[in-house]
């Protein structure tokens, strides 16, 4: 599920924000950081981190496979992209017999806390990022400074 937000006029310390996002990803024991990329694109700063599941889950359908967070821009005008990938997310539809191979959604729910579901993790991370943006911004965070682009 890709999710992009543009933040304007916040005076955000993007380096500090990025470091805290990495720390947040590292706190999830089922994830490991696989790749970090930093540099300049089109004259603006760019940082991207990809973390992936460290081991096979007990149930597949809907469980978190990888997370990617990208920040591009300048303190007063920047973009954040959050992507969370889940295994066989498109099998979550009625009558999809393919479910039986990869494991029914019920199994994932039954697995409880051991099943790290992509949708839940994405929601949690999105809220955490909002909190971190506020923490690392020099100006007040208001709804009119944020624009969301949904896929």
């Amino acid at each position: 599920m890709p999710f992009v937000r543009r933040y304007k006029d916040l005076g955000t310390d993007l380096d500090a924000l990025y470091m805290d996002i990495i720390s947040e990803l590292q706190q999830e024991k089922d994830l490991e950081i696989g790749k970090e990329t930093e540099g300049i694109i089109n004259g603006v700063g760019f940082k991207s981190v990809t973390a992936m599941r460290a081991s096979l889950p007990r149930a597949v359908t809907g469980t978190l496979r990888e997370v990617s967070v990208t920040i591009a821009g300048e303190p007063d005008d920047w973009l954040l992209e959050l992507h969370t990938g889940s295994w066989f997310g498109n099998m979550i539809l009625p009558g999809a017999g393919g479910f039986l191979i990869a494991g029914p959604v019920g199994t994932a729910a039954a697995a409880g806390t051991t099943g790290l579901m992509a949708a839940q993790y994405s929601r949690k991370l999105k809220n955490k990022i909002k909190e971190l943006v506020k923490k690392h911004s020099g100006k007040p965070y208001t709804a009119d400074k944020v624009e969301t682009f949904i896929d």
Partner: protein
Amino acid sequence: MTLVRRYKHLETDLEKLFTDIVAEIRKEPKLNIVSVMNGEVNGVPMMSVIASRTSIPKILVGTLREVTVTISGNPDDYLIEMHVGEWLRNLVVPNTDAILLVGPLTGLAAAGSHQLLAATYGRDLKLKIKELIKKHSKSEYTDEKIDTFID
């Protein structure tokens, strides 16, 4: 772009198919394999590979960020999931000036073959996987043995 296909009655050697898919991904110099998982989920074999981009692209929007291929099931009934992630795809909408932050779309066309575009790579890999399935299957590959689920 996520694509899931279910293949039935093909008697495919899934180990060899997976090995060849990993080899195919390794051929792309701009990609780096960051995770290979092989085990059982729900009593059926599951193999998954994740590769991510090795360096920062010249242009961001639409370029390949990561690739995941997962095989789950048995030789006569299995699923293949292919996910191709690209940066900031949600910005490819008319009238958004956010794209100016990270490089206009026209830059993509001008960049030509230098850029590893997710859509192009996804199409090529899909065709290659089809070819590899035919190579490693004992039964004839026909359309009625395949069911496609698109995200």
